[in-house]
């Protein structure tokens, strides 16, 4: 090897590396309002249907639903594509930019907001006036958009409610009554304090996870997140400061695993290993624990979620949106209605730990059966379904609380909880940062 070769390679590599370090970051293009499709009264044509990570576990179920639809409407053909969860929203954005959205598309809360705001989805309330009564009110309302009247821009699909799960044995060890779980945030913190005192450092009470806890905890404490006009954040209150002070105190006392301030992805492991008292608040988790940690499952108790002053949970439904300028509006609309009808949603819920957003589906005895009241999985299903009946949108994360707002708030909270910043200053700075982001988003 000559002396100059590596040098030349080095310079070339550096230039290429520098170039590549920046090249992945650009995105351009725009998407305006799409032209609206019209109904013809004929359910026919080839439509594309995109789901979020249902293959291979639910291939048979989804294909069965599609086959039955095609049998009912022989002139219609459904081309199904399933996209992995990782990068799903990014792909949706890219497709929206390229005008290549599928005719029927599975949307989460944030992707619904994004496509709905940009006028890319058909108004399903207008397509079928009698549709509203088929779904749970909270779920139906979720797909309205501010300033667009009674229009609804997606068919509600499956739902996952919030519940409370905890290790009964460790709960008792702290001198707490497992049959009287906390119902408010302050009460939850009191329990955590007693658990931390009784644990001797061997286990913790709950995950700090400020990103997961906010703004939910504040809403449950009655803290106003937004002004009445919804044009600025107003959470800088004594109550919010109190929340930070409690979190800081509990963190110092060992009520939360130290790393959970930054990450919460190991909660199943920690709960399954008896290292934490409060588990994740989802019924699906109870099933996981049953399979992976049967000993802890036997000690798991289920109750209604901590709802504080609101008294009910929020509702986050997956939905099926119809591309506004689809060429086969009738086929797309009928298909989305077919997938989200009562029987199909109940069948889906029997295969996965999810719930129907369809009122008829949710009324199925499968969701009210509490068994002998001792099996956590059965109980979780009944408790979750019960909570869904009264779920309302005011417990949902406001759309103004974007991922970036959440990150900005969480950064200040992390510093305060660690004791690197005064709680009052942290809340002030968090609100300032959140309002800056909100103003910037409104300007552009």
């Amino acid at each position: 090897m000559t002396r100059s070769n590596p040098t030349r390679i080095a310079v070339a590599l550096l230039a290429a590396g520098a170039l590549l370090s920046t090249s992945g970051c650009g995105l351009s293009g725009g998407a305006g309002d799409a032209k609206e499709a019209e109904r013809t009264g004929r359910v026919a044509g080839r439509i594309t249907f995109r789901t979020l990570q249902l293959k291979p576990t639910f291939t048979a179920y989804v294909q069965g639903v599609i086959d039955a639809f095609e049998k009912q409407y022989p002139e219609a053909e459904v081309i199904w594509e399933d996209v992995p969860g990782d990068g799903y929203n990014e792909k949706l954005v890219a497709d929206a930019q390229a005008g290549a959205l599928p005719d029927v598309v599975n949307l989460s809360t944030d992707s619904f907001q994004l496509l709905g705001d940009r006028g890319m989805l058909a108004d399903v309330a207008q397509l079928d006036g009698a549709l509203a009564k088929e779904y749970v009110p909270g779920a139906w309302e979720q797909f309205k958009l501010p300033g667009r009247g009674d229009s609804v821009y997606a068919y509600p699909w499956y739902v996952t409610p919030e519940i409370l799960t905890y290790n009964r044995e460790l709960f008792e060890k702290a001198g707490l009554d497992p049959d009287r779980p906390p119902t408010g945030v302050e009460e939850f913190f009191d329990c955590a304090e007693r658990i931390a005192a009784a644990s001797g450092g061997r286990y913790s009470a709950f995950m700090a996870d400020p990103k997961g806890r906010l703004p939910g905890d504040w809403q449950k404490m009655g803290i106003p997140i937004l002004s009445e006009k919804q044009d600025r954040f107003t959470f800088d209150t004594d109550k919010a400061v109190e929340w930070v002070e409690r979190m800081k105190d509990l963190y110092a006392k060992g009520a939360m695993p130290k790393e959970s301030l930054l990450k919460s992805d190991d909660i199943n492991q920690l709960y399954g290993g008896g290292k934490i008292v409060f588990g994740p608040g989802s019924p699906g988790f109870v099933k996981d624990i049953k399979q992976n940690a049967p000993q802890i499952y036997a000690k798991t108790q289920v109750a209604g979620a901590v709802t504080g002053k609101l008294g009910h949970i929020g509702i986050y439904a997956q939905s099926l949106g119809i591309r506004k300028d689809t060429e086969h509006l009738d086929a797309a609309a009928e298909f989305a209605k077919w997938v989200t009808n009562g029987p199909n949603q109940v069948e889906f819920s029997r295969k996965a730990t999810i719930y129907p957003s369809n009122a008829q589906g949710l009324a199925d005895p499968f969701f009210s059966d509490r068994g002998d009241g001792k099996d956590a999985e059965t109980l979780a299903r009944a408790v979750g379904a019960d909570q869904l009946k009264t779920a309302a949108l005011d417990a949902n994360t406001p759309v103004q609380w974007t991922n970036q707002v959440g990150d900005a708030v969480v950064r200040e909270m992390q510093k305060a909880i660690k004791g690197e910043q005064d709680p009052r200053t942290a809340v002030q700075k968090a609100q300032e940062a959140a309002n800056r982001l909100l103003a910037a988003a409104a300007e552009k």
Partner: protein
Amino acid sequence: METETGLVHRTWWTPYLFLAPGLAMVTLFSLWPFVNTVILSFTDARILRGGSFVGLDNYRRAFADPDFWVATGNSVLYLAVVVPCLVLLPLALAVLVRTKIPGIGFFRSAFYTPVIASAVVVGLIWQWVLRSDGLVNTVFQRLHLVSEPVPFLTDSAMLLVSAMIVTVWKGLGYYMVFYLAALGNVPATLYEAAALDGAGPVRRFFSITVPQVKPMMLLVGTLSAISALRVFTEIYILGGESGGPGGGARTLPFLIRQVGLGFAGETGYASAISILLFLLTLVFSLLGRRLSKGDER
């Protein structure tokens, strides 16, 4: 016209024909995105909307943004610590594993193992090692070296150091192979002559090995500088998506991702930070070039 071998004489455009596929790929996937990023950096574009021209606003915003300076400081610090380690330690390791002792092949393979392990797996393993109830803290506490767990992952400065350790650990085997190739090209006669002249192993290392592998050291320095400036995975896996408590361990690529991704992602501003990262990389590129020129003289 056909030659005796049956091959057709090349015309003037033949080389370009061979170059075309590669050139097209580079243009499509590197040059155009780069040009696009430069353009976007002067706009207020967001994820789903092409923006309008805002001049140098994004750059002014970056210079006034404390987060940008924290990220720049962290990136430069990362480079300043990681590059010397990755230039010197793998060389020492390469010299060591060239020793002819039984079973050395095993060590060569062992040192290379972290290179083929996925960054995520490496991050997870180190997370288990460094967390407050992890291996290191348990050992430290059992030996009564510390009363409280060392906050390897929950303190911004410690998190950055932990990520640097992971980067160096993962890079050791990779760059060791580079040095093994370079050491193989050093004439054995030089060592023999030096030994005859009475030079000991240390003298031979500094007077023969180091000058002979200096061009390779430059290459390794350049490569490790690029990866240091682009570090993301280690910090993300060890410190979560906020980049350490309060985002105090964020590097420039981390900040670009945070600003530019998501449905509220500010593509224009993220592009401006990308260009600033490019310029920073260019500065180190020119520095490297100067060093190599001095070396050639």
